[in-house]
């Protein structure tokens, strides 16, 4: 029986009402009395030396308040990078300066050169056109392999070359892996591209900086997934404002998908300018501006080799990846192709030897950082493509080959430094075969053939590491931050509860699902619990929402704080009931003395905490408010199996997704409705990556796909209804809720299923020479591949 309340119930979302009636409060809805508007004049060349910026004419234009350039930021810190990678030889990565406004050179199309603050946005834009720029254009570095060739133009003159780092993992295994591949009965090799994407949350980024002279307090309203992280990075590293003088608010945020994790120059600018001008300064990105200033995602070029013995057991994996960093290091960019990618290269398989090499490269393109899945989709795509190719080369069933190599005993320590706590990969594969109706596939293929279409079935597995992360571990790996989460549970005098969480909801529905947990623990109605998030002024220091970490880490912090509440409330109840604390039980919002009919209601205990007339003041303090910081003991490891069925039109190469099924193991689930929604959205983004989306640059570093006219977002008619199932549940063993996280699975698990299906369709049509098609598998690419 489905539950209708508490943990496991598909409770309808309470936040929906404000969004459905137009009274949400997004950052662009924030307007401060007397605010000025800023427009950024951005580079239209990929690489150039700034010879002169003449703002004299523009400064006299109507409404102009002040024009800022890079010179105004001499002595101000640059945008920091939050993760340092150590290379194969033990040296730190090359880390370039990243000024708020360009200094000396522009390094990508969209690099901000000047900021025009005016009374209206229109006046700021008009004045920007009157700024005279003298920029000496330099050769652009776009292709990654060319960027690291001898004699390549340097993106950063003061660095040795364009190689950020050359990372090897696990370096000690390198020779053993080489040997295993040399001695293998069969080696399958695949070269592929993981295409550059743009996250494209529907709400463009916005920043409103405000300054209050009365208390010397700066406030930044921003479209962020993690306001505390922005406060720390911007306050400590850029502007030199201590945290108690800086408030960061991320109100309703219209989607993030990773690209709103990072600290951006525009946030620092608006905060800085508000202090300089003693008035609020607002910036709202246009979509075109978003394409050239939001951090991009993916952009890997990879060669993977899979070695098998004569019985088709996987014996070794070797990969070499070029990962694009873009022109500067975005906040977590260095971690994505390394620790979030290399550590997942074992996938669901017991391959004993793995070596991952990653060369991170600077180019004259927009910085690249985490996008939904961040490193894990790149790992999954190459692994699941090469396994599929191996099955085809060996003439074995792709499901059987996977099953034969599945990890089946847990906990399992991979050769790439992580320990999977639980999982059951056969169970999710069984479930997938059922919900995707593998049995009916041949009939559907014949039906497609009758209509002249080629039908293909693609499957794959995935594993991901979520719930980032044990702070001491990530510290060793180069993180310049802790990755715990926090919650304060404030029980009010009349029994209602306010939970202040460091997690941030930008579509995930925390305002609904978090109260389900607290309500279940206390036996009260979820409507008595309110969630506060997104404001550093009224939430404890938290690390925010990304990496599918909210319920696994933020939820665990909330559980720990609620446990403290229960402990203290029991002490109060034992006093009121004149019973031993050990005998007090809490059920359905009532404290009872075990084995008696004596009880006291939740509300009586909470009132006593704040009106402590009859209260054990000598033993405990008044009040009922507790805070917990939770630092996870391990990552969590959601896993699953996905299947995609496509039809290919052999005349045009057009691919349509006919069916899509996902069987996931997320451990325990708080709100199944919300979980399904997360998977749906991830699948659409994965299908988008596989068939539609591509962020394209020409050889001069011009961004060719800078609007929705050129960047193909998945639309309603590009996708089918999805079959999703999350009934296979192996609970996480190391967090109190047994949860694993579900936010990224869909985007991780779906691209290989789609491409495997396309290849299967082409082979069914006799195009057996086609070994791979790079994403997006556009009609032009598919048609060309069929032509041999």
């Amino acid at each position: 029986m489905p539950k209708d309340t508490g943990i496991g119930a598909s409770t309808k979302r309470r936040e929906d009402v404000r969004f459905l009636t137009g009274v949400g409060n997004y950052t662009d809805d924030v307007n401060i009395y007397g605010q000025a508007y800023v427009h950024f004049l951005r580079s239209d060349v990929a690489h150039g030396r700034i010879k002169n910026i003449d703002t004299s004419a523009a400064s006299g234009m109507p409404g102009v308040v002040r024009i800022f350039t890079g010179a105004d930021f001499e002595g101000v810190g640059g945008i920091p990078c939050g993760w340092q990678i150590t290379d194969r030889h033990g040296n730190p990565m090359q880390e370039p300066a990243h000024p708020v406004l360009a200094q000396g050179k522009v390094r990508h199309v969209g690099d901000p050169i000047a900021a025009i603050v005016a009374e209206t946005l229109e006046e700021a834009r008009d004045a920007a056109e009157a700024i005279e720029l003298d920029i000496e254009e330099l050769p652009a570095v776009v292709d990654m392999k060319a960027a690291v060739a001898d004699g390549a133009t340097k993106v950063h003159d003061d660095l040795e070359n364009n190689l950020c780092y050359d990372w090897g993992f696990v370096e000690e295994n390198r020779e053993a892996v080489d040997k295993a591949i040399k001695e293998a009965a069969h080696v399958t090799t695949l070269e592929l591209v993981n295409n550059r994407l743009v996250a494209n949350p529907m709400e463009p980024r916005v920043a409103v900086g405000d300054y209050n002279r009365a208390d010397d307090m700066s406030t930044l309203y921003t479209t962020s997934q993690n306001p505390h992280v922005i406060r720390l990075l911007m306050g400590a590293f850029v502007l030199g404002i201590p945290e108690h003088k800086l408030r960061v608010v991320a109100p309703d945020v219209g989607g993030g998908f990773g690209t709103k994790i990072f600290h951006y120059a525009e946030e620092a600018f608006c905060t800085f300018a508000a202090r300089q001008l003693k008035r609020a300064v607002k910036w709202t990105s246009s979509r075109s501006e978003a394409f050239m200033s939001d951090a991009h995602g993916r952009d890997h070029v990879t060669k993977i080799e899979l070695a098998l013995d004569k019985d088709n057991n996987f014996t070794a994996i070797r990969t070499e990846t070029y990962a694009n960093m873009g022109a500067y290091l975005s906040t977590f960019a260095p971690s994505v192709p390394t620790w979030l990618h290399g550590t997942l290269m074992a996938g669901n398989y017991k391959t004993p030897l793995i070596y991952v090499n990653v060369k991170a490269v600077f180019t004259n393109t927009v910085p690249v950082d985490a996008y939904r899945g961040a490193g894990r989709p790149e790992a999954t795509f190459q692994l699941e493509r090469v396994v599929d190719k191996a099955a085809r080369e060996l003439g074995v069933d792709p499901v059987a080959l996977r099953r034969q190599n599945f990890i089946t005993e847990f906990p399992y320590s991979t050769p790439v430094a992580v320990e999977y706590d639980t999982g059951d990969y056969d169970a999710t594969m069984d479930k997938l075969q059922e919900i995707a109706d593998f049995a009916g596939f041949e009939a559907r293929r014949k039906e497609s053939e009758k209509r002249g279409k080629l039908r293909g079935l693609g499957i794959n597995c995935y594993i991901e590491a979520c719930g980032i992360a044990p702070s001491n571990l990530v510290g060793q790996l180069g993180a310049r931050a802790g990755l715990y989460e926090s919650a304060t549970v404030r029980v009010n005098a009349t029994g209602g509860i306010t939970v202040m969480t460091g997690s941030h909801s930008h579509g995930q529905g925390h305002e609904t699902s978090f109260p389900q947990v607290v309500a279940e623990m206390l036996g009260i109605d979820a409507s008595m619990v309110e969630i506060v998030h997104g404001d550093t002024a009224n939430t404890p220091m938290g690390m925010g929402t990304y990496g599918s970490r909210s319920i696994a880490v933020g939820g665990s912090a909330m559980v720990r704080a609620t446990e403290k509440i229960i402990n203290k409330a029991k002490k109060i109840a034992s006093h009121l009931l004149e019973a031993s604390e050990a005998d007090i039980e809490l059920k359905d919002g009532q404290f009872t003395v075990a084995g008696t009919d004596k009880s006291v209601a939740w509300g009586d205990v909470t009132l006593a905490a704040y009106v402590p007339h009859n209260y054990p003041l000598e033993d405990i303090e008044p009040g009922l408010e507790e805070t917990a910081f939770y630092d996870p003991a391990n990552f969590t490891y959601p896993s699953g199996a996905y299947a995609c069925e496509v039809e290919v039109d052999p005349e045009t190469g057009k691919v349509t997704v006919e069916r899509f099924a996902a069987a996931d193991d997320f451990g325990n689930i708080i709100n199944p409705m919300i979980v399904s929604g997360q998977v749906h959205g991830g699948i659409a983004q994965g299908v988008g990556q596989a068939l539609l989306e591509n962020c394209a640059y020409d050889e001069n570093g011009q961004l060719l796909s800078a609007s929705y006219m050129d960047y193909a977002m998945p639309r309603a008619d590009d996708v089918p209804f999805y079959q999703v199932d999350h009934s296979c549940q192996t609970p996480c063993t190391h967090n109190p809720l047994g949860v694993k996280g579900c936010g990224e699975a869909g985007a991780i698990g779906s691209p290989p299923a789609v491409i495997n299906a396309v290849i299967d369709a082409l082979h069914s049509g006799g195009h057996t020479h086609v070994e791979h098609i790079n994403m997006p598998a556009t009609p032009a690419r598919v048609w060309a591949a069929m032509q041999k």
Partner: protein
Amino acid sequence: MTKVSMTVNGKSVSGEVEGRTLLVNFLRNDLRLTGTHVGCDTSQCGACVVHVNGEAVKACTMFAAEADGAEVSTIEGAANPDGSLNAIQQAFQDHHGLQCGFCTPGMVMSAAALLKENPKPSEHEIRSYLQGNICRCTGYHNIIKAIMAASGQDVEQIAAE
């Protein structure tokens, strides 16, 4: 500056606008009706859909001056007179047809326009109609389901939650 007057959600309003002022900016900045959103600058995303004289319009593609004298309705006027969610809004909540909520006002206004001209649209008809409304969160599954439910169709058989 030009004076414009129009009826918005049943109320007469007027204001001074530049010739280049878009209807969406007049609604958001002058009238402070911030439920209508701007998600792109090429009339592709549909977050700004409102109704002008009963027709769905992308408010980023119309000058405020062009709406002079028109009847405009926005998401803020969509609920039932007693303030409860209308059938489409309720179906979006019931079927989890929204996540971050940013595209939602445009989706609801487009869905209303669709159901006005086609009271029982098929899945295919809904997907085709919504080509001009981009959602990045939901993968569309639950939006399609919600619109089918709002039009009185049985959606129980549609795959999983």
